[in-house]
């Protein structure tokens, strides 16, 4: 279906002075699409030109419509010399290509120049007329909707979730072309921006085609990334989840469907083999470290890729299927087989979603991950990017086999990333192995699923914790107990996942951000030797990162991690590992034991004393944390728990783990294996330092919480004030003290100080929570470490929070103390099944009957309802109009979350995916590196907001800064930065406004708009 693109250039404002003599500018505009260019007249001598052009019409194929950006260049007319470019605007017209999104793009766009930044604004109107044509062999995929959001977008309903789509395109990086020797950096940066824009368009179109082939109509959890491979080229790759979405028309209907991502997950204790060497040994290893498996030696290609790929792939696939065969047989549930068949047709049963429709997720197996070290070489034929495809296929295969080994057929919360340094590239993929409900994966209805769920009789709030694998044939040594919630199924003692906390999960207390940070020096080396060195280091790093995570989790008194993201970054002379996750206490899992310190030389008296002193400090910290995060698990008597599954001890020198605050459970824990994580051996100074560093993590100041998931467990009553921010820090290491230990300390301090600064800066928002805290580490140069953080601070109502928490605790206490399991299960099921799926009336009835039957007080009901609407919709309705329902025109909110507190998203306008390069040759004059980057990031925000506003939106959700590559050369007074951001443009309406509009005259809206300035974002 070809189309007609129409563009009108209206006016400009705040243009820079281009003619020094007159202090004015003679501006005109070039409008380019594909190979066609139109020009406006010159508007002489004005900084605020009014072109009011005719409609420029481009008749184009829809393929081009998808690929090409609209390029608008503003120039200064010069009679005697060449016209000077003032700047450019790239407009992605994709949002105009599907009917439900925007119909017109109209507004003020910042005019951007790679050297000068934003130079004035231009008012543009863009429309598209599409002609229908039913060519079955079409190359375009107009009409497929894209969402960055990693859950089913609000105001849509998932009819079918088809599954994984991926694509990548490669090209030569203009920056590295021969022509760059003669053209200016500015010209090549512009060429880069243009090329990446084009490549993203092409990539999106190709993904769209795959979605159409799968008979889907949308991609959810779309994640597009660039690999700047330097001389070997530029790779743009994307993954996503193909879905068939239905627009919910009635507002009443959409609340339940969107807001019930009942994701469930579960995870397995990281039972790493203490000796990483075994990883490279026989085929049994992958089974052992399923949870997260790294097999660098296997997947690392020593030579340049293509020839080697086959070699490395073969053994791996073998192992994968081997494990599958082994594990697959004994699997119990019928359901699982069903799922399996549904999923087996897919090459990669992966889902980039992190939150799911109710009933979708059945069990969670744990985190699966794979990394591979590759040597980059020039991409010879950009049209056939086989090598890169093969690399990723290989990694995905590995992930798939790990998932199988965990008794899971699918991987959810899946993501991929790379880290490149010179010609070495680490490819990483991770996700959470899971068992899914097959009904969603084929044609069928959501209702069907729910029925099925009820049949399964899975207790809500704990079902996802139950192990999917066979306990007699466990893929790794784990410590299982009966679920503390339903007491019917087995659960692991710790659960790590990459997904968001399922909304129906029963959590005790609040969660917190947990990070593991690690540096390892490595020798500088070239090519193959370098790759070998890196792959040798990787297992150690992964092991330590997990140990750290586990220790910190214990220290917090929690038993599960959500949103786990482990980033390994490679630099010239070091590797950095940064893992972030949100720790919570899941009611279904056992109480974690404490941390026990053991010394190696027990005879030394002073040493003993020291150890016991440390032990006391650790115990104190655990107790303090439990108080801080309000973790008061109910006391449970021994019979209920049932006897633990006995397990062979891993070590002979096993020591008691205990914590003062959980003595009753401790008794039980003693006999179990899998103690390694609880015991810290202090055998040398390094270990001592590790323990110290554990204790140096300072909790956030009171009134602050932080998490890297969408929402903070235990806080439901968000108020409407949000502040999204990006913070970047770069430190220079002095080369003198480059030891692993000093490095670790520096890195740890960097992260801790950064967090402290954030808490300080945002102190006026207290009580508030930093949500979706996203740390990115890069090593731009030898001795530089760069950390980039993007997050959103959301205020909440403290009083309500307290009430909720109390009620919550009461509820859990109650549950625990009741012996009657049936009574217990009934209400629990209701809150996950009936409520999210619907209709309030039936749900209420159920609840009523439940409470009258079981005598559960009304208070609990309230909690139940609240819990199911974590987005706060339920709560906000009760609140009086937000103090600042601020609908001031022009304000565009940005948030990394998929929702806006206190508001309803009424329309999705399309995806925002923007790439900018900024350079300077006058670094000092622009305020040094900080001034330069500060201004650039502010400009990027401005351009995102302008595009959203032009689409008619007032917010960006699921915003993410995917790349922020900063390079400086202070000696030359130069710097350059590349930034890539994306998100979903939406229209939202405040709930209070919705109510006001319906009940009062429109005038009422003005009031908050005038007074409500304070709370913009």
């Amino acid at each position: 279906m070809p189309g007609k693109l129409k563009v009108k250039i209206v006016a400009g404002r705040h243009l820079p002075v281009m003619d020094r003599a007159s202090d004015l500018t003679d501006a005109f505009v070039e409008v380019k699409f594909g190979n066609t260019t139109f020009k406006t007249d010159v508007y002489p001598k004005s900084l605020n030109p009014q072109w009011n052009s005719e409609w420029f019409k481009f008749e184009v194929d829809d393929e081009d419509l998808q690929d090409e950006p609209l390029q608008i260049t503003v120039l200064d007319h010069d009679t005697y010399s060449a016209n000077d470019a003032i700047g450019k605007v790239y407009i992605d017209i994709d949002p105009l290509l599907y009917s439900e999104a925007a119909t017109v793009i109209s507004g003020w766009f910042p005019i951007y120049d790679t050297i000068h930044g934003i130079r004035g604004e231009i008012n543009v109107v863009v429309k598209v007329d599409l002609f229908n044509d039913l060519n079955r062999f079409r190359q375009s995929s107009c009409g497929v909707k894209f969402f960055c959001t990693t859950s089913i977008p609000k105001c849509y309903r998932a009819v079918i979730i088809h599954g994984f789509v991926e694509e990548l395109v490669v090209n030569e990086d203009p920056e590295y072309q021969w022509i760059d020797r003669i053209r200016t950096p500015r010209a090549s940066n512009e060429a880069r921006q243009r090329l990446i824009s084009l490549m993203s368009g092409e990539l999106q179109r190709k993904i769209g085609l795959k979605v159409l082939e799968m008979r889907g109509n949308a991609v959810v959890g779309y994640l597009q990334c660039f690999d700047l491979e330097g001389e070997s080229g530029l790779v743009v790759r994307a993954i996503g989840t193909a879905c068939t979405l239905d627009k919910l028309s009635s507002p009443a209907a959409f609340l339940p469907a969107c807001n019930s991502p009942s994701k469930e997950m579960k995870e397995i204790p990281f039972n790493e083999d203490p000796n990483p060497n075994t990883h490279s040994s026989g085929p049994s290893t992958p089974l052992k470290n399923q949870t997260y498996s790294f097999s660098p030696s296997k997947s690392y290609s020593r030579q340049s890729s293509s020839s080697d790929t086959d070699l490395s792939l073969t053994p791996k696939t073998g192992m994968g299927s081997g494990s599958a065969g082994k594990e697959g047989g004994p699997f119990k549930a019928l359901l699982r087989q069903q799922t399996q068949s549904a999923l087996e047709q897919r090459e990669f049963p992966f889902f980039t979603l992190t939150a799911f429709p109710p009933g979708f997720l059945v069990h969670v197996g744990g985190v699966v991950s794979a990394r591979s070290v590759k040597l980059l070489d020039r991409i010879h034929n950009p049209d056939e990017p086989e090598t890169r495809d093969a690399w990723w296929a290989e990694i995905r295969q590995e992930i798939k086999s790990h998932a199988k080994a965990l008794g899971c057929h699918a991987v959810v919360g899946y993501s991929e990333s790379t880290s490149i340094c010179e010609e070495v590239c680490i490819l990483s993929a991770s996700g959470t192995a899971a068992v899914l409900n097959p009904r969603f994966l084929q044609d069928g209805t959501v209702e069907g699923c729910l029925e099925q769920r009820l049949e399964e009789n899975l207790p809500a709030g704990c079902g996802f914790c139950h192990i999917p694998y066979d306990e007699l044939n466990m893929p790794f040594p784990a410590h299982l107990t009966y679920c503390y919630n339903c007491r019917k199924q087995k659960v692991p003692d710790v659960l790590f996942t990459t997904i968001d906390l399922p909304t129906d999960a029963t959590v005790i207390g609040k969660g917190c951000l947990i990070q593991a940070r690690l540096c390892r020096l490595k020798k500088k080396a070239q090519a193959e030797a370098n790759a070998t060195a890196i792959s040798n280091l990787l297992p150690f790093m992964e092991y330590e990162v997990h140990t750290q995570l586990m220790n910190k989790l214990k220290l917090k008194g929690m038993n599960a991690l959500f949103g786990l993201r482990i980033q390994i970054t490679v630099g010239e002379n070091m590797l950095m590992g940064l893992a972030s996750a949100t720790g919570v206490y899941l009611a279904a899992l056992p109480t974690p034991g404490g941390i026990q310190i053991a010394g190696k030389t027990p005879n030394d008296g002073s040493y003993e004393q020291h150890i016991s002193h440390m032990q006391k400090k650790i115990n104190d910290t655990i107790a303090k944390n439990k108080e801080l995060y309000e973790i008061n698990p109910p006391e449970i008597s021994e019979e209920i728990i049932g006897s633990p599954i006995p397990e062979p001890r891993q070590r002979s020198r096993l020591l008691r783990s205990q914590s003062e605050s959980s003595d009753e459970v401790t008794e039980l824990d003693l006999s179990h294996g899998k103690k390694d994580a609880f015991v810290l051996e202090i055998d040398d100074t390094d270990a001592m330092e590790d323990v110290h560093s554990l204790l140096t993590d300072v909790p956030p100041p009171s009134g602050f919480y932080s998490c890297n998931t969408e929402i903070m467990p235990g806080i439901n009553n968000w108020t409407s004030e949000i502040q999204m921010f990006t913070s970047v820090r770069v430190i220079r290491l002095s080369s003198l003290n480059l030891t692993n230990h000093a490095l670790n300390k520096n890195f740890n301090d960097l992260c801790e100080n950064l967090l402290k600064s954030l808490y300080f800066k945002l102190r006026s928002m207290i009580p508030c929570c930093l949500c979706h805290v996203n740390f990115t580490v890069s090593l731009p140069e030898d001795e530089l470490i760069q950390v980039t953080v993007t997050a959103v601070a959301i205020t909440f109502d403290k009083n309500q929070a307290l009430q909720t928490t109390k009620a919550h605790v009461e509820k859990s206490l109650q549950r625990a103390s009741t012996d009657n399991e049936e009574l217990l299960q009934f209400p629990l099921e209701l809150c996950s099944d009936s409520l999210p799926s619907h209709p309030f009336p039936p749900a209420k009835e159920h609840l009523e009957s439940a409470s009258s039957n079981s005598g559960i007080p009304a208070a609990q009901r309230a909690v139940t309802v609240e819990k199911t609407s974590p987005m706060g919709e339920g709560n906000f309705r009760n609140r009086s109009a937000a103090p600042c329902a601020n609908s001031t025109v022009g304000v565009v909110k940005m948030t990394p979350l998929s929702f806006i507190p206190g508001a309803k998203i009424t329309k999705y306008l399309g995806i925002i995916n923007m790439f900018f390069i900024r350079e300077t040759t006058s670094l000092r004059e622009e305020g040094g590196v900080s001034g330069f980057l500060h201004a650039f990031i502010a400009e990027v925000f401005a351009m995102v907001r302008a595009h959203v506003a032009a689409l008619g939106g007032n917010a960006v959700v699921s915003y993410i800064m995917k790349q922020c590559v900063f390079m400086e050369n202070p000696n030359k007074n130069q710097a350059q930065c590349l930034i890539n951001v994306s998100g979903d443009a939406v229209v939202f309406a405040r709930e209070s406004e919705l109510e006001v509009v319906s009940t009062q005259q429109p005038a009422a809206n003005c009031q908050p708009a005038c007074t409500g300035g304070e709370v913009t974002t």
Partner: protein
Amino acid sequence: MTSELDIFVGNTTLIDEDVYRLWLDGYSVGDAVALRVRSGILEQTGATAAVLQSDTMDHYRTFHMLERLLHAPPKLLHQLIYQIPPSRQALLIERYYAFDEAFVREVLGKKLSKGTKKDLDDISTKTGITLKSCRRQFDNFKRVFKVVEEMRGSLVDNVQQHFLLSDRLARDYAAIVFFANNRFETGKKKLQYLSFGDFAFCAELMIQNWTLGAVGEAPTDPDSQVDDMDMDLDKEFLQDLKELKVLVADKDLLDLHKSLVCTALRGKLGVFSEMEANFKNLSRGLVNVATKLTHNKDVRDLFVDLVEKFVEPCRSDHWPLSDVRLFLNQYSASVHSLDGFRHQALWDRYMGTLRGCLLRLYHD
């Protein structure tokens, strides 16, 4: 480990009012951090000095970037780079254009030129205001002056429209611009007791009554609209003021005027005898001020003259303010009863304003 780069960018630009004040006051980052530490913020928040340093740097950088926009406040409203709630924008602008009383008294009535700018060092030393802050205030005066200098229409409205200031601040700026334009002397020792508010009050009255803009609405020559400006005193009016000379030059008229005033005020004035004795001197003083206003030099000395010729004599006789008011009212009004005097309108235009000014200037 040294921090190479350290930034924080919010989708809504964070503005810390306290840091903004320190920045406006011209403190360096180091001084600002020290002052913040002294304020006890570390104890309140549990932050470290390094955090404070980083935070202060960040705010300073933001303010520095915003400063360009603050030079033309409407730009701040329409720009897209910094998302700032309207109330915050207003605060930024208002505070940026706010000035110190001590500083404004030093430069009020001076030419806003490079020469004066060079004196800022001295002013800084004298007032204890940092040089940086002095420069900002001076540049603000100059910038506003430049923008509204050639504009027609109400001075206050022009200032308000182009700088988006509050009514109060816009009026102050109108006064500053008016004083700078007319170069009224305010620095003399005998004028030191006067506050900026006193001068601003007088400026407002003068703008309302003595400028070309003041007669704009009057059915005068419609062509003179070209010069409808609040900045300059009405030259024609100043020329006409010479006609008032007759009030003191004509002895009969002066005597008659005196007797009218004395009759009316007898018994009502606590300082009646002093007034009676001084009447001719005071009247000569007030009328002579009027007649001399054709000379630029005398315009500049207007306030000096008023203080010398009227305020000081009355003060030395300890006139209470209420008596000064009674006297001035009567003094102005009685002229209407002088049959031989034909310039009643002119007199009212002159004396109406002068009376207001004198009452304001009459204090210790």
